[in-house]
């Protein structure tokens, strides 16, 4: 299973990747913002973990762009990991096509719980 980890903070990408490895996922690609993620996204990507606030293209715009595609972008699970935590933001993320939401700072058990929950759902969208 290949993850696409999107965050403009290199530190955060390393922390997420470290957590993924810790819970048993070792295949991944990285992107520094939404537009880079879109360019790297292909059929091999099974799961997207994205930050919200990023230069060039935000996480919500990335989610909308993926959901507008005709390939697996339409159904790939999208997990947002962000410091934004007001109710309106969370609802905006849902409307953009995000399947679940983690508030920073997160712990690996929370990450695992969200990934497991999304992977157990047959169709993510």
């Amino acid at each position: 299973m290949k993850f696409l980890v999107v965050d403009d903070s290199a530190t955060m990408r390393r922390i997420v990747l470290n957590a993924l490895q810790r819970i048993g996922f070792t295949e991944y690609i990285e992107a520094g913002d939404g537009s880079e993620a879109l360019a790297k996204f292909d059929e091999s990507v099974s799961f997207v973990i994205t930050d919200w606030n990023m230069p060039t293209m935000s996480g919500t715009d990335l989610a909308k762009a993926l959901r507008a595609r005709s390939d697996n972008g339409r159904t790939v699970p999208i997990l947002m990991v962000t410091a934004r935590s007001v109710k309106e933001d969370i609802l905006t993320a849902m409307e953009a096509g995000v399947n679940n939401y983690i508030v920073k700072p997160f712990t690996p058990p929370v990450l695992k719980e969200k990934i497991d929950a999304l992977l157990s759902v047959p169709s993510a969208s």
Partner: protein
Amino acid sequence: MTTNRALELLYDSEATLRLVDHELNELRELTGADDAVGAAEQAAGPQALDPMDGPIALAMIPSVLERANAEIVNVLGSLRQCRSALESATSEKLQITHAKIREVTSATELAATDILDGLDRAQSIIDEMDAEAAKDGEGSPRGRELRDRLRDEIFSVTGCLQFQDITTQQLAYAGSVLVEMEERLSEIARLFDPRRYGAPELPVPSAPPVQPTFSPDAAYRDATARQAMADQLFVTPPAPED
């Protein structure tokens, strides 16, 4: 010049403008039709005028104008000082503070990267210890337990480094507020039209980022409660409003 000094100057300027306004009112009353003489008397103070002596009241106009002019010169002086204070706050203090914020952001990012590198190396050493222990068969159960605990600790420290991303967002938010303050102070300073005094134009404030890359409500504390709210919303989303 401090903000307090700038406020004092503004207060002084306002008081001086009130004086000018008072003098101009006197002038208007002196040149008025009905109560010109009474106003001239008031303006003259203790030197009482003959109520019927209109030419004397008119003769006071130049001195009143001279006093008004002196007050205006005072106001201009205060405005120059205000502008200088605003310029100093805009071009020096705020920009220096902004630069310091960028410096702190960069320093914490470098430090976080160094710490992550160090933790990766420590992790590799534990892996080597595992390999060494495996050479002697199963190895000591206690040794294995200690290595596992050390791994857990390292992993826990790695997670704590999320503080860097969160503080970076908080600092970016503070920086954006400073940029906004710079712009507003520049606008106020421009009201004084520097060209009128032959002074150079204010520097152009640093441009804000096109798209904010921070969350104003980023916080390290209470993540559990905020996560619970997010979970609740995903489990039972609010019904759409009609």
